[in-house]
């Protein structure tokens, strides 16, 4: 395949040098430079097969380096954990590995793997859990054995659950230390609702409620071959690997399919939300409302809009807010989209305390500007060029191709989704972008969150409208009432009182 491709390239180069002597003189203007067509590139697709027990496998050969990596993605994640045990999947994702297997404790596994410079790791996300490995080719059998042990016979030993709980406690205690992290977390709660499974957060009480039995039960309920997508990439022979996998997983019976509850969204009322923080000189501003799903027909138009309005260096917001007004280092916006639920529309920036209100108004001006001065044909062309000319970077490594395919499989999207995406972007016109902007970004529907040092604001936030204070003080661990009274949480509450 490679030699074929470079043959095409060679002939193109030969053709060009015959037509235009492009190597002879150097250009004095970038527009004088000829851009030859990109040679046709058909990235290698992974081999897909389904085992009789329902496990879906993707094999992607890549012989560049003597490495074999793999990931098993299992359906269901933290969005399905009980509300009184939020944080359970975070702990599951850790103790699954650290708690060891029937054959080896977690510590023994650590020694076994590290001496081979290999990794087997587990994790969890909102909608799935994963077991993955990375190893040198020569260690594959040893490491795959450890992977399979973790996947099928984990022990969730209690000492490691205790350790994971301590680490969760630590993370909770530190969650108000960084202004950016506060802004992301709290604005997500405003967009989805504080108790929504995509937004809610672990508390000391919900972490303390998790038992070893919970982790064991979760594993028994979810880890069945028919809920698993396995992807392997690296220096192996697909036929031999397929035979091996069929043999190893052949005896694993099907289990019940995963059931997931419908998830409700309760976005906060539009308006202003304030979290005072005394120890900063920069405000974090985050405006949010509910976004769209990736299977929405407006998705392509929204992507072009995002690129033109709040994406890269040449977007409207970057140009106006950063380059021309010098108000921010970080500024961006976009109509967020997720595969199987609504994403979040976000407009966000950080600015010095003394330009907080000025910046909110500057962002409003850009949003209002979309009606009077819609994204132009020129801007749309640039946005589309940017997306389409960089399209090749979606599949410039076998590993990326594998991960894309695994995602489409997981969410039930067509295998040729990337091609459809390209075609979708190509078709987007001016009316589509204007429609997407009007349909999904509404100034009057935004929940506007400001985290900052209110004493130094240019104007009080309530000069813009009624303000709701958000209490981010951390509820103390069960049985330790008021343990935090001397800590930072108190200062936050005091700051609120002082600024009322």
């Amino acid at each position: 395949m490679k030699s074929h491709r470079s043959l095409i390239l060679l002939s193109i180069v030969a053709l060009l040098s015959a037509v235009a002597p492009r190597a002879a003189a150097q250009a004095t203007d970038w527009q004088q430079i000829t851009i030859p067509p990109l040679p046709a590139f058909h990235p290698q697709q992974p081999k897909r097969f389904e085992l009789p027990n329902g496990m879906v496998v993707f094999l992607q050969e890549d012989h560049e380096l003597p490495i074999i990596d793999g990931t098993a993605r299992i359906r269901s994640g933290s969005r399905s954990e009980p509300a009184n045990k939020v944080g359970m999947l975070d702990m599951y994702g850790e103790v699954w590995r650290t708690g060891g297997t029937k054959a080896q404790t977690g510590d023994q596994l650590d020694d076994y793997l590290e001496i081979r410079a290999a990794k087997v790791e587990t994790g969890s996300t909102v909608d799935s859990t994963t077991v993955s490995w990375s190893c040198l080719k020569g260690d594959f059998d040893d490491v795959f054995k450890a992977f399979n042990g973790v996947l099928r016979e984990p022990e969730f030993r209690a000492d490691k659950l205790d350790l994971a709980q301590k680490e969760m406690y630590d993370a909770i205690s530190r969650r108000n230390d960084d202004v950016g992290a506060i802004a992301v977390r709290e604005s997500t709660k405003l967009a989805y609702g504080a108790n929504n499974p995509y937004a809610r957060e672990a508390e000391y009480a919900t972490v303390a409620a998790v038992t070893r039995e919970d982790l064991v039960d979760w594993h028994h309920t979810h880890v069945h071959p028919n809920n698993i997508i396995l992807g392997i990439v690296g220096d192996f022979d697909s036929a031999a690997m397929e035979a091996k996998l069929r043999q190893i997983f052949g005896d694993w019976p099907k289990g019940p399919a995963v059931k997931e509850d419908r998830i409700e969204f309760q976005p906060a009322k539009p308006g202003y939300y304030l979290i005072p923080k005394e120890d900063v000189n920069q405000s974090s501003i985050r405006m949010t409302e509910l976004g769209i799903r990736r299977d929405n027909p407006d998705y392509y138009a929204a992507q072009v809009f995002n690129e033109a309005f709040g994406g890269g260096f040449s977007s409207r917001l970057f140009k106006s807010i950063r380059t021309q007004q010098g108000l921010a280092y970080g500024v961006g916006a976009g109509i967020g989209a997720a595969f199987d639920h609504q994403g979040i529309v976000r407009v966000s920036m950080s600015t010095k305390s003394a330009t907080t209100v000025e910046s909110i108004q500057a962002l409003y001006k850009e949003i209002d500007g979309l009606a009077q001065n819609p994204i132009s044909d020129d801007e749309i062309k640039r946005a589309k060029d940017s997306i389409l000319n960089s399209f090749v970077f979606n599949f410039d490594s076998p590993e990326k191709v594998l991960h894309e395919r695994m995602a489409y499989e997981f969410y039930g999207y067509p295998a040729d989704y990337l091609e459809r995406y390209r075609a979708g972007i190509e078709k987007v016109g001016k009316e589509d972008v204007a429609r997407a902007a009007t349909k999904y970004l509404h100034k009057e529907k935004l929940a506007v969150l400001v985290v900052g040092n209110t004493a130094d604001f240019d104007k009080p936030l309530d000069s813009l409208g009624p303000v709701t204070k958000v209490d981010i003080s951390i509820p103390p661990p069960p049985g330790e009432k008021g343990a935090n009274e001397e800590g930072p949480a108190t200062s936050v509450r005091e700051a609120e009182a002082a600024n009322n």
Partner: protein
Amino acid sequence: MNCRSLKSFAIVLILAALAAAQDMASFEKRTTVKKLDNGLTVVICERPEAPVFSFFTHVDAGSVQDPLGETGLAHMFEHMAFKGTDKIGTTNYPAEKVALEKVEQTYAAYIAERDKPVGRDEQKLKDLEKAWKDAVAEANKYVKPNEFPQIVEINGGEDLNANTSDDETNYFYSFPENRLELWAYLESERFLHPVMREFYKERNVVIEERRMRVDSNPIGRLLEQFTTAAFQAHPYHRPTIGWMSDLNSFSATDAKQFFDKYYIPSNMVVTVVGDVKAEETMPVVEKYFDRIPSRPKPDERTTTEPPQNAERRVVLQEMSQPLYLEGYHRPDYRSPDDAVYDAIADLMSNGRTSRLYRALVRDKKIAADSAGFTGLPGNKYPHLFAFYAFPLPGHKPEEMADAIHVEIEKLKNEEISDEELKMIKTRAKANLIRSLGSNEGLANNLALYQARYDDWRELFRSVDRIDKVSKADIRRVANQTFVPTNRTAGIIETKTAAADQEGGAQ
């Protein structure tokens, strides 16, 4: 460890060593180096995996080169390198040039009045400030904002960015392979005809970056105070982002002077990695980059940090959870012991078998995370080997210090085990192999090693150096380095309610 795994382990080691050697041989075949007439070094590495390429422009100047009173200038210039040229980003360069000269004259007059030690005339200052801002507005009339990055983006540029450290400045992005000549034009023009347009607005952007990374972040505040305390003579003393007063003072003229002095071809390495052929690509790169005029090497003398002979401590009272950090002076990257420090960092920090994880996190259960690392704040000059720990709720930074010191004493007094030493060496080889699979990572590494050692092959030889590290080396270097008088400690303590009230009176 039982017999069987020992045996299979030996096989792994041999496999890994073989793989590393094969890689070196394979890279010899597809890597071409050329020093152009003007002194600029070009490294081209053929990696025909997909029709794309990545590049790195490595400039051997960072914030260590910032002039006195102008901290942050190297980083400021890096921002200015996105502002375009005399042909890109302007509607009328001759007129803009005149307008920009006016901006500099009016700014100099304004600063002269602003910084008068005595007899400052406030009315005059206001008038001068207005004259400067009017001149800025006039110059802005000719600007096509962000045209340079826009050309990169519309042509499919990916991961367009740059970074400035104490040691060096890097510029990078990736392109589809049919944009090679466009890239060569853009990247060379950027360093042939940079224009300091929109300088003072961009300075505000950089000040916002400082607020974000340092002023509004407790760990950022600690790191700045810590590094400043650890280095008293060498320029590592000064923050890369710059002190606020310097940021509010330096000019576009200063930035251009910095560029003229340090952005010289012999200070630059350009690497191109991807689906390119050296025989076709080198002439294109040479054609464009050889235009950059060669200039004499700047005076590179810097003060050598004198030996530290008393422990230093920086304690910050913050409205955040505690943190413990300590650092010990060590020699620069050319030290024959460089690989020994790498081995110590790996032993102490890498993964769940690491000594600090096992001691502080797993066994004592006093920390959420703990590790040691080298290269703070850079590594081109003598720098720090640092350790840190995040205490679990209810535990104090002092406990972290004690527990870390117990582990350090073990390093000094006991030999590490055979298994540990083998683990370090296997991991170094495996990590090298894993780092070879991306254009961007390779472009970065080849540029760095070529710049630092004048030979990209050192990337591969660094693994051989780790392979030669002995147990005695680790004890010797630990005893040499980790002594209390050579230590700077940086601590975040959580502000108590009482301390809060004292501070609240202002």
